[in-house]
C-alpha cells in the first residue's frame, strides 16, 4: 500500500538527505517533488498547498538551515508535518457510556461499511472483550442484510435480523432494545451507502442518528478515493456529528491520499484502517507510524504488535524452549512457524510494514518468497510421515520421490526445502552458542536505523 507515495517521497528523502546545504532552490526542487507526489497520491489540492506552505516555512527557518545535517532536518520536518496532518496520535473508540453503546456507520456506496462493521465487531469481541450486536439498516441494496448476517456468523457475534420492508430508525431502535435485554454492551449499526448530496437519504440518517443517540458516528471512507474525498467528508461532517473516520482498502496499491485530506477537512480523528477482506484486517490507525511508512522508514512497531497478536503464546513458548536447547527443532516446528506467519496476514502484510529499501531488496531476491511458496512448503511437509518430520536426515531418494508426488511438486522443490531447513538448523545452533549478538550484527544491515 501507499507504494507510489512512499517511493516518490523516498526519492526526495534520499536526494535531500545528502545535501550539505539547503538553499532556497534545492528546497524548492524538493518541495515540487513532494507536491507532485502528494497530488498523484490523491491528496486534495487545497490540503497539498497548505502542507507545502507549512513545510517550506519551517524548512527555510532556523531549525533546518542552522542544523548540521540540514537534509536530515528537512526530512524530519516533512515527517512531523505528515504526522500532524494525520492527527498526531491514535484515538481509540470511546464507548464509556451506559451500555449499550451505539456505533453508527456512515459513508458512500462501496466504501466498505458492511465489511468494516463485521471487522469492528470481531475486533471488539476478540481484543476488547466486548459483546457486540450488529444490525443492518440497509433496506435498499439487495442482500445487504444477508451479507452482514454472514459476516456476523463468521465473527461469532450476535446479529439482529431486519428485513427490507422496515424503516431504518425502527430497526435500529428495536436492535438497541434487544441489546439491552440480552446484555450486549455495543450495538454496531450498519447503514445504506448514500451520497452526501442526496437530501432525502441524508435526512434519513440524521433521523436515525437522532433516534439511537450513537456515542460514536464513524465515517467510512475508501482510501482510493480521489480529489472529491474532501468534499464528501465535509458534507458528511456537516450533516452528521461525526466522531471518527475509518479508512478502508489500504492494502491496494493506493496511495491513501484520502488519509491526509479527510482528517484535515473534518478535524475528526482517523480511528481505524482496514486492510484485506478477511475479518482480522482492521488496525488502529497510528499517524506517527503511517508517516514513517509513507516516508519509507517502515513501521516496525506495528509489525511487532502484529506478531504478538498472531502468535499463539503456548506455541511460542514451546518454540522458544526448543530454540534454547538448540535441538529438536524439526520440520513440524517449521510448519508451525509458517502457520503463524499466515495468521499474521501472510508475507505480504509483513513486508508492507518494512522500510522501503528492505521491501525492494526482498522483491529482488532470487528466491522471492511469496505466500504461494509458503503454502507449497507446507504442502511438502504435510506429505511427510511424522518420523520424517522429526528426523529429516531419513529422507533419501525414494522417500523424496514419494513426498514430491504426494505434494505435487518436482523433487527439486523437496531438495530445496531440505536445504533451507538445514540452513535454519545451523542458525539455531549459532543462537544456542550465544551467537545472538553475532546474528544481530548480520541482520543489522537490513534493519532500519533506530531513532
Amino acid at each position, binding site marked *: 500500500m501507499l507504494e507510489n507515495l512512499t517511493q516518490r517521497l523516498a526519492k526526495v528523502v534520499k536526494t535531500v538527505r545528502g545535501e550539505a546545504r539547503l538553499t532556497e532552490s534545492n528546497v524548492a526542487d524538493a518541495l515540487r517533488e513532494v507536491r507532485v507526489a502528494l497530488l498523484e497520491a490523491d491528496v486534495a489540492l487545497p490540503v497539498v498547498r497548505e502542507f507545502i506552505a507549512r513545510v517550506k516555512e519551517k524548512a527555510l527557518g532556523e531549525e533546518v538551515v542552522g542544523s548540521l545535517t540540514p537534509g536530515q532536518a528537512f526530512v524530519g520536518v516533512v515527517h512531523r508535518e505528515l504526522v500532524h496532518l494525520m492527527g498526531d496520535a491514535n484515538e481509540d473508540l470511546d464507548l464509556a457510556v451506559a451500555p449499550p453503546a451505539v456505533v453508527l456507520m456512515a459513508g458512500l456506496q462501496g466504501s466498505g461499511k458492511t465489511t468494516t462493521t463485521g471487522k469492528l465487531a470481531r475486533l471488539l469481541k476478540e481484543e476488547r472483550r466486548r459483546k457486540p450486536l450488529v444490525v443492518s439498516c440497509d433496506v435498499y441494496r439487495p442482500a445487504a442484510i*444477508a451479507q452482514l448476517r454472514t459476516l456476523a456468523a463468521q465473527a461469532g457475534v450476535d446479529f439482529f435480523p431486519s428485513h427490507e420492508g422496515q424503516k431504518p430508525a425502527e430497526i435500529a431502535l428495536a436492535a438497541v432494545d434487544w441489546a439491552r435485554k440480552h446484555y450486549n454492551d455495543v450495538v454496531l449499526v450498519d447503514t445504506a451507502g448514500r451520497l452526501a448530496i442526496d437530501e432525502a437519504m441524508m435526512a434519513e440518517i440524521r433521523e436515525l442518528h437522532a433516534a439511537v443517540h450513537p456515542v460514536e458516528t464513524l465515517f467510512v471512507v475508501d482510501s482510493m478515493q480521489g480529489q472529491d474525498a474532501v468534499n464528501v467528508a465535509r458534507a458528511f461532517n456537516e450533516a452528521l456529528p461525526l466522531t471518527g473516520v475509518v479508512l478502508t482498502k489500504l492494502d491496494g*496499491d*493506493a496511495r491513501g491520499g484520502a488519509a491526509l485530506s479527510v482528517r484535515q477537512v473534518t478535524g475528526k480523528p482517523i480511528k481505524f484502517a482496514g486492510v484485506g477482506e478477511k475479518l482480522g484486517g482492521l488496525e488502529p490507525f497510528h499517524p506517527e507510524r503511517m508517516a514513517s511508512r509513507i516516508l519509507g522508514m517502515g513501521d516496525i512497531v506495528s509489525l511487532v504488535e502484529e506478531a504478538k497478536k498472531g502468535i499463539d503464546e503456548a506455541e511460542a513458548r514451546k518454540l522458544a524452549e526448543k530454540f534454547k536447547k538448540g535441538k529438536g527443532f524439526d520440520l513440524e516446528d517449521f510448519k508451525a512457524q509458517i502457520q503463524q506467519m499466515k495468521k499474521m496476514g501472510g508475507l505480504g502484510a509483513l513486508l508492507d510494514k518494512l522500510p522501503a529499501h528492505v521491501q525492494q531488496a526482498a522483491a529482488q531476491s532470487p528466491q522471492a518468497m511469496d505466500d504461494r511458496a509458503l503454502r507449497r512448503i507446507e504442502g511438502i511437509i504435510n506429505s511427510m510421515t511424522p518420523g520424517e518430520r522429526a528426523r529429516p536426515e531419513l529422507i533419501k531418494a525414494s522417500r523424496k520421490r514419494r513426498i514430491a508426488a504426494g505434494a505435487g511438486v518436482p523433487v527439486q522443490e523437496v531438495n530445496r526445502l531440505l536445504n533451507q531447513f538445514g540452513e535454519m538448523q545451523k542458525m539455531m545452533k549459532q543462537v544456542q552458542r550465544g551467537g545472538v549478538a553475532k546474528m544481530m550484527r548480520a541482520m543489522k544491515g537490513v534493519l532500519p536505523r533506530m531513532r
Partner: protein
Amino acid sequence: MFGFLRKSKDSPESASWLARLREGLRRTRASVGGLFGGAKVDEALFEDLEAALLQADAGVEATQALVTALRARARRERIEDPAALQKALEAELEALLAPLERDVDPRAAKPFVIMIAGVNGAGKTTSIGKIAKFLRTEGFSVLLAAGDTFRAAAREQLVAWGERNGVPVIAQEGGDAAAVIFDAIQAARARGIDVVLADTAGRLPTQLHLMEELKKVKRVIAKAQDGAPHEVWVVLDANTGQNALAQVKAFDDALGLTGLILTKLDGTAKGGVVAAIARNRPVPLVFIGVGEGIDDLRPFVAADFARALVE
C-alpha cells in the same frame, strides 16, 4: 459503443440522458467551466485551469499535457477571448477522449459472453444489473452468472436483482467462480440466450493470487466456448482517484481488457480520471453510469462527455 443502438442526437430520450450527464458532472463543470467568465486570457486563467483539472482527478500528467497543449494553441491561434479558449479546451478534450469510444456488437456470437471484473465496491453487481436491463430493452435475451462466490451474500444480491427483473441467474452454493460461469455458458447455449454477463468477486490488483484466479476464470470461459469471453470489462468507481489508472493497467495486463465501465458519476464525482486513462492506457470506455436509477447507465460518447465537462 453499441453504435447500431445509438439514438439519434435529437430524440427526446437522448436529450434527457444528456441532461443527466450534465447533472452528473455539474460540480466539475462549475469549477472548470466557471473559469472562463473573465475578460481576458492570462497566466492566472491557465493556473486556475490547472488547479481545476487537478481537482477533477485528471492527474498531474494529463493536466500538464492539456494545459500545455491549450497554451500552445492559444498562442498559435492568438486566442484572447476566454469563451474561445473554452471552446478550444472542449476540442482538446474531445480529441483526447475520442479514442475511448468503441462499438460493440453483441450479435457477433451466440451466446455473447461478457466478463466483468473490478475492485471491491466499485459497483460490479449493480452495473451488471443495469447492463442486463439495457440489453433487454434493446431486444437481447440475457443470462447472469453469479461468479462472485467470495463476498458474503453477493450471490443473493444478484439473484434478488434477477428475480425483480425477470432475468435468469445461474448460481451455485459455494464453489468456484470459473465453474459457475462455465455452467452458465452451457445453460445459455441450451436455452438459446443471446448474452451472458459473468460477475466476478471484487479484488484489489495488489492481491496477486486473486489476479491469477481471475486469469483462470478467463481461461475456463475460453474452454466453455470458442472465442469467449468476447468482452472483458472492468468497472471503475468515478470517485476513485489516480488509483483508477493503476487499476486499469493491472487488470489490462492480467486480462487484456476490451472495455471500461465508469460508475457513480453522480454529482459528487469528478470524471477527470477519464483524461488520465486516455493519456496513459487508452482502454475504451463502453458505459458510463450517472446515477442510481436503472436507466442511468449508457454508452459513452466523447463529444457529449467533453461538452458536459467544460461547457
